[in-house]
């Protein structure tokens, strides 16, 4: 617990010092979601049909953009290797950093989603389903993203490589996340989709911090 608290508080504090970075990713999300009604045309039926999927894809891309913030700076200035010498378990510190990442990435997205959802003409209930799916899914994006961000630490072409590695892994989250809203709109229950998302979250919570810690040790070697 001590390591987790340390990692979480530290990264949140660092996030507050570079609020611009966080706002930029949020801005990206808002701008890109706004581009679609412009590009696709104002037909409300079309927008309603694609809305949830677009919001989900943009959330995924926004998460991807922000992942380098998790470890790259610490790796470059040497603070990451200092963490390996903590008396607290390294996995705990990593878990704290991942949660801090979600708080500065996924959570702001969640808060903006109702507004963006209205842009696409989603109903209140549909926005609710969308929010729930994002609440379950964006932590998974942060968790899986952490593993891949750690694996690509210090590699050239890191950004593109990260996207290439990560996007296929994000597909299951995307499918069930966006699919939940579609299922709701079609009148089918959402329990199935939410269950899968929850299962993915549990799996990621259990596996990601350890896998990430192992990947970091490899990168530092």
């Amino acid at each position, binding site marked *: 617990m001590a390591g987790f608290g340390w990692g979480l508080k530290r990264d949140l504090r660092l996030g507050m010092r*570079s609020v611009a970075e966080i706002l930029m990713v949020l801005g990206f999300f808002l701008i890109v979601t706004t581009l679609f009604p412009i590009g696709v045309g104002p037909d409300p039926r079309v927008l309603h049909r694609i809305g949830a999927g677009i919001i989900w894809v943009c959330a995924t891309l926004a998460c991807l953009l922000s992942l380098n913030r998790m470890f790259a700076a610490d790796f470059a200035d040497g*603070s990451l*290797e*200092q963490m390996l*010498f903590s008396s607290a378990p390294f996995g705990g510190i990593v878990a704290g950093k991942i949660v801090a990442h979600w708080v500065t990435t996924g959570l702001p997205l969640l808060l903006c989603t109702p507004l963006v959802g209205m842009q696409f003409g989603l109903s209140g209930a549909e926005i609710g389903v969308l929010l729930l799916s994002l609440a379950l899914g964006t932590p998974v994006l942060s968790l899986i993203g952490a593993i891949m961000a750690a694996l690509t630490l210090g590699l050239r072409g890191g950004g593109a490589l990260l996207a290439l590695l990560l996007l296929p892994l994000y597909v299951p989250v995307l499918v069930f996340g966006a699919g939940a809203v579609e299922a709701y709109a079609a009148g089918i229950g959402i329990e199935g989709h939410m269950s899968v998302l929850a299962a993915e979250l549990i799996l990621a919570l259990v596996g990601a911090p350890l896998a990430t810690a192992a990947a970091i040790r490899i990168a530092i070697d």
Partner: protein
Amino acid sequence: MLFGPLDFTVDSGAALYVLGPNGCGKSTLLRSLAGLSEPIAAEVYWRGERARLNSVHWRSQVAYLGHKLGHKEELSVEENLELASALEGARSSASQCTAVMERVGLERRRKLAVKRLSQGQKQRLALARLCRSQRRLWLLDEPSAALDTNAKRVLTEILSEHLRSGGVAIVATHDLIDLAGARSANLQLA
């Protein structure tokens, strides 16, 4: 392979200087000792037990100071010190922090973000971190590189105190640090 077979023991209260030209492997040796790098074939023992990074017992004995000092540039001097102490699991009172910052001459800059410090000042912050550390084994990679005479004196004092209290230090360096009275040995690589 960077260097051939090495075999050495460092006793409590003694320092080992690792000397050699640039590129001969001083940093690599220190990192291997710390457990950051996996050596091809090596065994490191601390107090008779195998030293591995995933053992809490080992890693909570090591204070490693590498070329990359490990400061967060956006945070202030005192925030960095507090974080480092907390990472070690030690509670640091405000007065202890102040005392150590005064010792390295950073007290007046305690609220300044590290990115505004000079290289020498950043190195002094690293010294402050060492000073606060309770750890028994110090692995220092060129700790005096950017230090001025005053700061070098502080480094010598801190190192001497550490050794006198029974700690061990392995220091990769270009210039020998004159530790009056303390036992030391030289390891010449290449």
